[in-house]
C-alpha cells in the first residue's frame, strides 16, 4: 500500500461515515449558537426600529456597524468587516500564525469546541478503524472508555502547544524576526524572512500535531492506556515510516489547501439580502463541512497508514 493509497483509503472511509461529519458539524454549530444568539439579540436591540436596518440588511452599513461595535461588549466588537467571506479565513489563520489573542467569548467557544472534539475523538477514530459501521452507542461507549487517557493526553498536548505558541513563537517572531529585520529597509525581504519564520514554526507545530495524531490513533487502535507509551509509539512509527506518516499528513494539508482555494473563489460576500443570505450561509456551511471532512481525512488516512504498518485492519487490540 503506497502513501497515496493509504490517504485515499482514509478519505474513502470518511466518505463512508457521513454521520461522523455530521457529528463534528453539529459540534461547531452547538458551540457557535449561544454566542450567535446573544449577538443576534444585541444587533436587533441596537438597530431597533431604525431605518439603518434597511442598509444593514441589504448590504454593508459601515456607519451602523461602527456605532454598534463602539457601544458593544467584547462579543459585539467582533462584528467587523473581517467576518465577511474569505476574510474570516484570513483573519483566523493570521490570528493563529501571529499568536493574536482572542476575546473571551470566542475563547470560551473555542475551548468548548476543543473539549467536545477531544471527547469524541476516540469514538471517531475507532469508527474509522473499523471495517464495519458501528452504532452511536458504541461510539459513545468508546469515547467514555477513553476519556481519562484522552484527558491526560490533552494536558500533555496543551503543554506542548503552549510551549510552541508561547516560547517558540516568541523566539521566532519577537526575537529572531525583529532582530534579523531590524535594519532591513526592503519590505519584500522582511516579508520573505517572516514567511521563513512561519514555515519553520508551522513545521514544528505540524510535527507535534503528527505525533499527537498518531498517539491518539495508537491509544484507540491498540487500546493503549499510557499517554507516554502512546506518544513513544507514535514517535517510533513516524521515525520508522516517515514517508508513510508524513506523506499522508502532507496529502491532507494539500486537501486543506484545495478546500481553502475553492472557498477563496466562492466565499459569499455581504451584499445580499433575503433568500440570498441563506444561500450564502449554505455555501459557507458546505465549506465548513469540507474543512471538517479534511479534519476527518487526517485521522482516517493516519489510521489506514498505521493499519498498513501493522498489516491488519480493524482494532488491533481491545
Amino acid at each position, binding site marked *: 500500500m503506497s502513501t497515496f493509497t493509504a490517504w485515499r483509503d482514509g478519505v474513502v472511509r470518511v466518505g463512508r461515515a457521513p454521520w461522523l461529519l455530521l457529528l463534528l458539524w453539529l459540534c461547531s454549530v452547538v458551540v457557535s449558537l449561544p454566542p*450567535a444568539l446573544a449577538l443576534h*439579540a444585541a444587533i436587533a436591540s441596537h438597530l431597533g426600529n431604525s431605518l439603518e436596518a434597511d442598509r444593514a*440588511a441589504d448590504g454593508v452599513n459601515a456607519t451602523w456597524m461602527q456605532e454598534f461595535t463602539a457601544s458593544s461588549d467584547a462579543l459585539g466588537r467582533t462584528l467587523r468587516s473581517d467576518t465577511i467571506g474569505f476574510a474570516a*479565513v484570513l483573519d483566523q489563520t493570521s490570528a493563529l500564525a501571529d499568536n493574536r489573542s482572542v476575546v473571551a467569548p*470566542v475563547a470560551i*467557544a473555542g475551548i468548548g469546541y476543543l473539549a467536545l472534539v477531544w471527547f469524541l475523538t476516540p469514538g471517531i477514530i475507532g469508527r474509522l478503524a473499523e471495517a464495519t459501521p458501528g452504532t452511536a452507542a458504541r461510539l459513545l461507549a468508546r469515547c467514555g472508555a477513553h476519556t481519562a487517557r484522552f484527558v491526560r493526553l490533552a494536558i500533555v498536548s496543551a503543554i506542548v502547544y503552549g510551549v510552541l505558541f508561547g516560547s517558540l513563537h516568541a523566539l521566532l517572531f519577537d526575537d529572531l524576526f525583529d532582530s534579523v529585520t531590524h535594519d532591513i529597509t526592503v519590505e519584500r525581504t522582511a516579508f520573505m524572512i517572516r514567511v521563513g519564520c*512561519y514555515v519553520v514554526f508551522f513545521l514544528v507545530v505540524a510535527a507535534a500535531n503528527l505525533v499527537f495524531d498518531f498517539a491518539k490513533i495508537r491509544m484507540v487502535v491498540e487500546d493503549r492506556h499510557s499517554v507516554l507509551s502512546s506518544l513513544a509509539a507514535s514517535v517510533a512509527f513516524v521515525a520508522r515510516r516517515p514517508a508513510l506518516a508524513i506523506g499522508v499528513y502532507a496529502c491532507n494539508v494539500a486537501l486543506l489547501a484545495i478546500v481553502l482555494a475553492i472557498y477563496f473563489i466562492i466565499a459569499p460576500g455581504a451584499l445580499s439580502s433575503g433568500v440570498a443570505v441563506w444561500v450564502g450561509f449554505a455555501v459557507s456551511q458546505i465549506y465548513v463541512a469540507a474543512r471538517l471532512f479534511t479534519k476527518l481525512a487526517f485521522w482516517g488516512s493516519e489510521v489506514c497508514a498505521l493499519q498498513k504498518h501493522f498489516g491488519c485492519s480493524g482494532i488491533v487490540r481491545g
Partner: protein
Amino acid sequence: MLPERPAPISDRQIRYIAPDDGNADDRTVMAVSLPRVVQPGETIVLSLAWTARVPRTFDRTGTIGDYYFIAQWFPKIGVLEDSGWNCHQFHATTEFFADYGVYDVRIRVPKGWVVGATGTEQSRTDEGATEVHRYVQEDVHDFAWTTSPDFIVRTARFDEPGLPAVDMRLLIQPEHLTQVDRHFAATRSVLRRYGTWFGPYPYGHITIVDPAFQSETGGMEYPTLFTAGTSWLISRHVTLSTPEEVTVHEAGHQFWYGIVGTNEFEHAWMDEGINTFATGRALAEDYPELFADRYYFGGFVPWTFTDVRLQRETDFDRLWDYRRGATEDTMSNLSYRQRQDTVRYFAYDKPAVWLHTLERWLGWPTVQGALRATFEDGAFAHPGPAVFLGHLQRRADRDITRFIDQTYRQSAVFDYSIGDLAVAARHGQKESRVLVRRLGDGVFPVDVLVTFENGDRITERWNGESRWREFTYLRPTAVRSAVVDPQRQLLLDVNFTNNSRTLAPRGAEAARKWTLTWIVWLQNALLTWGIFA
C-alpha cells in the same frame, strides 16, 4: 545692513528658557542676548555653528540602512510677532512653527546617491568620492532633505488650465516601482483640487519621497517636499493603505502648512484639520470607489473588502475618532496644552467633521470662500483661527456664533433622535405622532422627514432648542417612518442609528443576516483551533 565686524556671542549671553512651562531642565529653546539692541530697520546676520548626530530613524527623522531622512535638524529662529517672540519649547504632541525665509543649503553625500530636498537643485559639485548638492528655496519656513543610493527617480509634470505648471519629482523605492503612476495621480489630484478651491501652488516643483520600509518617516510634510508611504503588497483598488490617501494628505499640506504657515504648536487644527477635511473632499472627488482593507500576517498581506466602501464623512473625516474624544477637550484650547492621548482628536478628527458639517449646513461655496480667503490672507504668513472664523461668519447667510461657541470653544455633544413613532385610529383617519428628541447638550436646527404609507413626504423644520418636539398628523394614511436630519448635515451627531424610526422595521432581518455571517466567522475560528484537537 551687515555689522562692521563679527561679534562672537559668549556662553554668558546664551541661556535656556522655557516659555511654556518654566521647566528648568528644558533645553529646547535658547535665548541669546545680542551685544546691542537692533534698531528698527536694521538687519543683523547670525552665524550659527552646530553639530548633530543623525539618529536611527524615529519620529520621521534619522537613518536606517542607506536611507537618510533629515528633518528638524537645524536650530530655528523663533517667530517675531507684534506681541513678541513666539517660540515654544519642544512638545512631543505637536509639530512646529517658524518664519518664512530663503534656504540655500549644500549637502555632501556619497557620489551617486540620490538627493531630494526642499527647493530645487542649483548645482552639483563632484568632490571625488562625494558630491555636493546645492538646494535653494525662497519663501518657505522649513527645510528637509533625504538621500539614499536606492531611490529611483521618476518625474512628471502637472499641467492644468488656469493653474501654474508643477514639475513633480518622485523618489521611489525599487520595490514600489509599479506604483509610480498612483503617486503622481494622487499628487495631481491635490494640485488641481486644492489649487482650484484655495489658490494655486506657487513653487513650480514638488518632491514626493517614498520612504524606506520601517523608516518611520512616512506621511510627513515639509515645504515643497513630502513623504508618502505604501506597501510592497497593495490592493489594486484604492484603500486607506494604498499610496493615495497619504499622498493626497501630505501633498495637501503644501497648501495648509506650507503656503499658509499656521502655528502648529497652538492651532494644529488649522493645518491638520483643514487638510484632513480637504483630503477627504479631494479623495471623494477623484476616487469615487474607495474600499476598506486590512493587513494580515504580521501586517504584510493585504485584503480588500470590496463590499465595504469607504465614505468621506465617516472614514476620511475620521468620524469614529471624533466620537471617541468628542468631550475630551475643545478645539480652541492651544494644541500644546492638550493631553497627549487626545490632542489628535482636536487636531485632525473633530475639525474635519466640524468643517464637513459646516459645508453641509452653510454650503460648499461659503466654506470654500472662507478657506480661500484665509488662504489668500495667510499665504506666506501666520493666520490664526480668528481669520478663518471671521471669513466664515462674513460669508454665512445666518448667524453661526452659537454653533461656533458650542463646537469650537466648547465640546457640546449633539445627539438628535426619533424618540417615538405611533399611529392610532381617530375619526376614521390615522393619527400619527412623531416624537423627536434632543439627547445631547448641543443645539442645532434640524429637519425632520416624515414619510407616510402612501409615499407622501413632509419635511418639518425644528430649531432643535427644546428637549423634544412632537409632530402630529391626522391623515387618511399612517406615517411609515421618520428621520431627523435626513440630509445628515449634522455630522457631529454622535449616534446616527437613533436618527430614524420606522413602523416597518427590518432590524430582525439585518440581525439574522449579520448573525449568519458571524457564525461562519466563528466556525472558522473553531476550525482553525481544531488543529489542537
